[in-house]
């Protein structure tokens, strides 16, 4: 995709971003984000640091990333890289994001494989897992704060959770059945009721901004 397709407000529309700079920015985000929170660093560097994206650009990119399968941080790298420099840009961004973590986790994995019967290693890792449970709970609550407050969304959340965690239904089936059902409940003909009332509950949603990245 030519750079002219990117946001009109951002500097990227005028000066094409160098592939190496793209790689470097995502490499930084991938190297400093310990314990998760990669998306926050991507936002900081893309919007605050480089100014390649406006905050609105970033939010609409995040919105697409959340709807698509895969890790949000990786999806953001693919989309931003593609929008700024096409397929080579996407490859540079994803490689940058993943290389630091891949190296560190591989080294840790080899060390762990050789010492996994050491009780101290086990206890340290158990403490980390406990921290992860606390972090995942908060992240889920924060990401779903709109959905937890709406009856229809809450029902979908509970059914999805129960299907996976209680009835142990395979994820493929859960997505194939509940996914289309949920989309059907928000189908355009029902837009007057369900979808538009959802609109009112979005905090930082000031009018239509969908696809602003390419406007």
């Amino acid at each position, binding site marked *: 995709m030519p750079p002219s397709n990117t946001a009109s407000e951002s500097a990227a529309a005028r000066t094409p971003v160098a592939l190496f700079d793209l790689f470097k920015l995502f490499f930084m985000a991938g190297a*400093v984000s310990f314990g998760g929170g990669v998306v926050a660093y991507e936002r900081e560097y893309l919007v605050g640091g480089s100014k390649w994206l406006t905050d609105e650009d970033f939010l609409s990119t995040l919105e697409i990333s959340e709807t698509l399968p895969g890790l949000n941080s990786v999806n953001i790298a693919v989309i931003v890289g593609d929008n700024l420099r096409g397929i080579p840009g996407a490859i540079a961004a994803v490689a940058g994001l993943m290389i630091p973590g891949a190296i560190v986790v591989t080294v840790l994995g080899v060390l762990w494989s050789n010492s996994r019967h050491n009780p101290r290693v086990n206890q340290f890792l158990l403490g980390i897992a406990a921290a992860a449970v606390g972090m995942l709970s908060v992240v889920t609550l924060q990401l779903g704060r709109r959905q937890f407050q709406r009856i229809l969304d809450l029902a979908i959340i509970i059914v999805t959770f129960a299907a996976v965690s209680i009835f142990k239904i395979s994820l493929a089936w859960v997505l194939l059945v509940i996914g289309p059902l949920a989309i059907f409940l928000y189908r355009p003909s029902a837009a007057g009721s369900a979808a538009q009332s959802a609109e009112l509950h979005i905090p930082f949603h000031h009018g239509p901004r969908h696809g602003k990245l390419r406007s």
Partner: protein
Amino acid sequence: MRTQLLKLGLVFAMLGVLAVGGGTAVLPEMQHATVHWFSLTDKQFRDIYSLGQVAPGPNMMMVLVIGYRLMGALGAAIVGVAFFLPDCAMTLLANRLWVHFEGSPWRLAVQRGMAPVAIGLMCAGTYAIGKLTIMSPITGRMNPLSMGIAIAVGAILLWRHVNPGILVLLSGTVYLLLAH
């Protein structure tokens, strides 16, 4: 060996594509697949997940360690490619198609409908790690220390923003010190 590698690649390609709502959403399925279809134990899965928390970048890079544990360096490479490549290709394609659905009411329907599904899956992922961590896999009894750390970390993060990396290392250290 070759068929096992192929199977490993196919399983992780499937897991990558099914990760609607991010990595957490696919954790229960990943645990099930690696423990029941391959020789990973629940405890190893939990430990490897913890390693992912210590490393920078996306936490799900820990899939490389799963591959390494099961089938060495080749396993790590295959799992990495299988888990991330199809996903990235799909995202690239969707990004280019997305613009054609500009203004389509169905685009909004997909976003609105899939959001609670993704949150439900994240709840399931959190529950899976919670069960592995807070319930002893052997005795089935609750581990009060894990429970305490999880609650403390959650409370701290709700109270204010703290670098999660610090909380991760601190929690590991606290567990190590108090477990004796």
